[in-house]
């Protein structure tokens, strides 16, 4: 008999049951994939670095005569457990690689060429298989190369380096745990050993472009900074923890995906709880009848728990199957650069859906406790128990200044706000999350972050080839001359400007008996007062420096302390006069006074040339000049402040795709919640709808009443989310920027997007789907006043 009652129930409340099933499916999918992602992400970086074989320290040397220096310095060092060295050839990101169509390929940072046979790390292809060999004449490229140049496997690339020209077939993207992050931005070409040897035959390459990467496993508790500081030509020296920070952006995206999963899980459960509560409340008549004929509470509860268990099992099995492609979809943007996984695998997903099933049954058990309160009288009186309730109507029709339909909608919301809690929570959570991401993405592509990379300028010019030439063969005088030439050329072209640049030296810094190699930045043609400081005053002479909070933490120095810096030709005591923030080198930077004399052999980077027009042109004019300068210097990489920030951070596009994915998922959740809630309201209010129609309300009046109600609740939840999104962005996203070195970020809040566009999209979805669902009220006629149970 129970089965027959169940069958009847499933058939009679088809729509409600289907929607409930849909939410169980979504909850299962979200929980299973969310749990998998949580475990993969939490252990993600370590899992990947271990898989690739990255030890606890890595050193890169470049420049003439540096080959063998790492080995010489560290091979016999007792503090070193294991030393692995890869020999590489360095190239510039421009003018060294050409695509099949003859166009110059673009890369973000220095290129590296390497023989696959000489690899000391594991590199992975797009399917996460370890690359063991590369056929002669073929090549794999790591990092952003494929994305930037839209190159597909099978296409040819030509390497022109020194006097060499070599054409290779691109075999696909390789994942490089050390240099492949957006933050490092280096592209490594993995090639056959014979091809690599051919490259070395070129004299320029052999003499000037060779370098080494040393992977050092340092014994626990030991520090090899002093030994590394003896190695000439060190361009990078980082510990594994620093490397892990390079994945911060990938991890940010992974955690966004993760928080999204958690949000969706919360929404799913809120809606599930509502559905179960609602359907049980709707059953009072049947429950009363069952009690009246002598069926025990326990049996009635078993019937309903059985129904929800069945729905939970069906929904969760489908959800489990869908969780695998869904988790792949969510993690796609993260796994482009990484190999993520965990040692437990699919079992995690199974645990996830088991949790959902248990929770649903627990909900059902909790909600069915109302069965005890339902008496046979409920069946007889159709739920009218004669119970007196406290007054709830506070908004009176006589005092309202709106139409009847709008009044009814407002009055419903004011009179029974608890009925709308599910909508408010779901809409608020989803909208808040979308808006926080919008704020973050907008900030990342706004000029607000420009001063965390450099000083404010009108235009930024990336000319890595020029920088490489200066670093390898030139000197500071050449750089000053190059800047002067560029400024003169611009003035002659009617664009009077000053040009300047920042350079970074790797210097040995000593404080409190410890030595560290830290990137020291110095402006050429700028002064220290051009930069922003968090605390203290700008360095006023060559013996003064500013440090970042990260450096302060690393070396223990504070404002007023004196640190010793080895500038190459001399060591000098410098006083810390200020703190500043930067996202360069993940925040580990010292700012030198412009007069501080540094040995050019310590130079590690020459940043983008900066142009500040002296005739103060408008933004429109700057854009025009940008295009003219592109033609003038034959360089596409001339950027305004926004483009520069976006280029430096490097993940804006990924963030945007995550943002759109999130918006899509939010819209789906919003429309499902809307349909489910509206359907529930219609079922609950059938008698009221029928009586309204009987007394002369038209179909469109009833539909408007329902739409207005959703509009009011949705608008309130979304507007609240928009307001809260501003402090919440600050609260949740600032620690992430802090990890990247920017401890004081001014967020770009676009009121149009935050208060109009995104809330508008979500509200419109709500109204449209509330309206479409409310169309079913047309089927309720005034005749139903006689048919209502």
């Amino acid at each position: 008999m129970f089965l027959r009652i169940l069958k009847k129930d499933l058939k009679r409340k088809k729509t409600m049951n289907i929607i409930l099933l849909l939410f169980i499916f979504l909850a299962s999918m979200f929980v299973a994939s969310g749990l998998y992602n949580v475990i993969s992400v939490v252990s993600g970086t370590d899992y990947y670095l271990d898989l690739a074989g990255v030890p606890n320290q890595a050193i890169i040397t470049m420049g003439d005569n540096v080959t063998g220096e790492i080995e010489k310095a560290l091979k016999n060092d007792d503090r070193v457990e294991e030393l692995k060295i890869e020999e590489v050839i360095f190239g510039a990101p421009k003018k060294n690689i050409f695509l099949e169509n003859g166009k110059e390929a673009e890369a973000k940072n220095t290129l590296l060429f390497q023989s696959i046979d000489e690899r000391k790390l594991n590199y992975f292809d797009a399917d996460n298989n370890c690359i063991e060999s590369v056929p002669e004449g073929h090549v794999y490229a790591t990092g952003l190369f494929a994305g930037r140049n839209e190159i597909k496997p099978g296409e040819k690339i030509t390497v022109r380096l020194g006097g060499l020209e070599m054409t290779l077939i691109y075999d696909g993207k390789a994942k490089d745990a050390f240099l492949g992050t957006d933050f490092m931005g280096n592209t490594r070409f993995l090639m056959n050993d014979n091809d690599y040897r051919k490259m070395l035959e070129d004299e320029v390459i052999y003499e000037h472009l060779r370098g080494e990467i040393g992977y050092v496993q340092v014994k626990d508790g030991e520090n090899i900074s002093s030994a590394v500081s003896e190695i000439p030509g060190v361009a990078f020296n980082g510990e594994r923890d620093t490397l892990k920070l390079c994945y911060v952006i990938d991890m940010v995206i992974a955690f966004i995906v993760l928080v999204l999963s958690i949000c969706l899980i919360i929404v799913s459960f809120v809606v599930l709880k509502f559905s179960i509560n609602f359907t049980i409340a709707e059953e009072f008549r049947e429950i009363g009848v069952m009690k009246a004929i002598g069926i025990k509470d326990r049996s009635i509860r078993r019937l309903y728990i059985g129904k929800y268990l069945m729905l939970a099992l069906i929904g969760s099995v489908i959800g489990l199957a869908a969780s695998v492609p869904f988790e792949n979809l969510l993690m796609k943007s993260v796994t482009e650069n990484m190999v993520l996984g965990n040692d437990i695998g699919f079992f995690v997903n199974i645990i996830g859906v088991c949790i959902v099933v248990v929770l649903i049954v627990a909900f059902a058990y909790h909600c069915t406790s109302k069965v005890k309160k339902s008496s046979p009288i409920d069946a007889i009186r159709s739920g009218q128990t004669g119970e007196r309730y406290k007054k709830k109507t506070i908004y009176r029709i006589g005092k309202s200044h709106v139409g009847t339909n709008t009044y009814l909608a407002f009055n419903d919301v004011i009179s029974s706000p608890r009925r709308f809690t599910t909508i408010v929570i779901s809409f608020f959570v989803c909208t808040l999350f979308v808006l926080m991401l919008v704020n973050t993405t907008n900030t990342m592509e706004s000029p607000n972050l420009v001063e965390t990379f450099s000083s404010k300028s009108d235009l930024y010019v990336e000319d890595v080839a020029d920088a490489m030439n200066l670093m390898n063969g030139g000197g500071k005088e050449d750089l000053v001359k190059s800047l002067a030439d560029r400024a003169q050329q611009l003035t002659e072209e009617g664009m009077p400007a000053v040009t300047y640049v920042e350079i970074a030296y790797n210097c040995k810094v000593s404080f409190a008996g410890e030595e560290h190699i830290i990137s020291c930045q110095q402006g050429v043609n700028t002064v220290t007062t051009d930069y922003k400081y968090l605390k203290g005053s700008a360095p006023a002479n060559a013996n003064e420096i500013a440090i970042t909070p990260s450096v302060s933490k690393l070396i223990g120095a504070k404002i007023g302390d004196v640190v010793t810096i080895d500038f190459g030709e001399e060591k000098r005591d410098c006083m810390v006069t200020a703190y500043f923030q930067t996202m360069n080198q993940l925040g580990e930077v010292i700012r030198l006074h412009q007069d501080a004399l540094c040995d050019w052999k310590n130079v590690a980077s020459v940043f983008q040339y900066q142009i500040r027009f002296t005739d103060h042109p408008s933004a429109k004019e700057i854009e025009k000049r940008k295009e003219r300068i592109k033609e003038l210097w034959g360089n596409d990489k001339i950027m305004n402040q926004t483009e520069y920030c976006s280029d430096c951070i490097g993940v804006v596009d990924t963030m945007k795709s995550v943002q759109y994915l999130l918006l899509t998922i939010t819209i789906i959740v919003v429309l499902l919640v809307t349909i489910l809630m509206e359907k529930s309201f219609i079922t609950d209010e059938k008698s009221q709808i029928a009586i309204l129609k009987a007394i002369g309300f038209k179909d469109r009046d009833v539909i408007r009443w329902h739409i207005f109600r959703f509009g009011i609740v949705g608008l309130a939840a979304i507007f609240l989310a928009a307001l809260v999104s501003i402090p919440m962005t600050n609260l949740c996203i600032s620690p992430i920027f802090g990890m990247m070195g920017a401890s004081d970020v001014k967020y770009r809040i676009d009121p149009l997007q935050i208060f109009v566009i995104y809330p508008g999209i979500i509200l419109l979805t709500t109204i449209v789907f509330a309206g479409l669902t409310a169309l079913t009220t047309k089927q309720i006629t005034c005749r139903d006043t006689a048919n209502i149970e």
Partner: protein
Amino acid sequence: MAKVMEVKDLCKTYVVNKRQNNVLKNVNFSVEEGEMVAIMGPSGSGKSTLLYAISGMDRATSGDVTFNGKSLMGMKEDELAEMRLDEMGFIFQQMYMMKNLTILDNIVLPAMQSKKTGETKAEKMKRGEELMHKLGIAEVADNDINEVSGGQLQRACICRSMINKPTVLFADEPTGALNRTSSGEVMDEIVKLNREGTTIMMVTHDARVAARCSRILYIVDGNIKGEYDNSQRLAMEEKEAERRLNQWLMELGW
């Protein structure tokens, strides 16, 4: 007296499980202004279906219903809704009301929706209060619907049905859910309204209620089997009127 309603060859057929069920079969009658007509008949005879069809709440399958000279059959749903709002009043057995409104707000709701009179909101509210006062429920004006008794609620429903000053008041078992005392009170109010000029059409099972009407239509299997003129009721004792009606009903097989 002028005819308020004329029903001609009215048929209503339902198809249930591919089976045709002719609920109303060529029903013909007319109602004059100021009449109080009761529709009686056994369960399933088509009383409520007839009431819904002649009040525009349901569409007849064929035939015609003329209300105030206008045929309901050709009217669109919106026109029917407007007619129900402005020219008809309804009382049902179950006292359905909007759950989140007070008694007074429920009563004035049709007036607020109507554009017939051009009155202000305050005037409409005042009229609602006057109606409540007239029906003796003024003290529950600000109560929620679950704070009043069934009798008070049904009187509130009568107030709601009267708020737009309808030409005809349709009532489907208005006392069906009430006890004897409440039932008597509600009928007193309906009779009073009729005496004030409102035409009333009412479905009832209760001969005591029907005995207070001026005319009784007895319907069996979708046909009007008999018509009883009760216009002399006022000239005799209430019990006598009820006895005579019962006798007539017995003759028809009640």
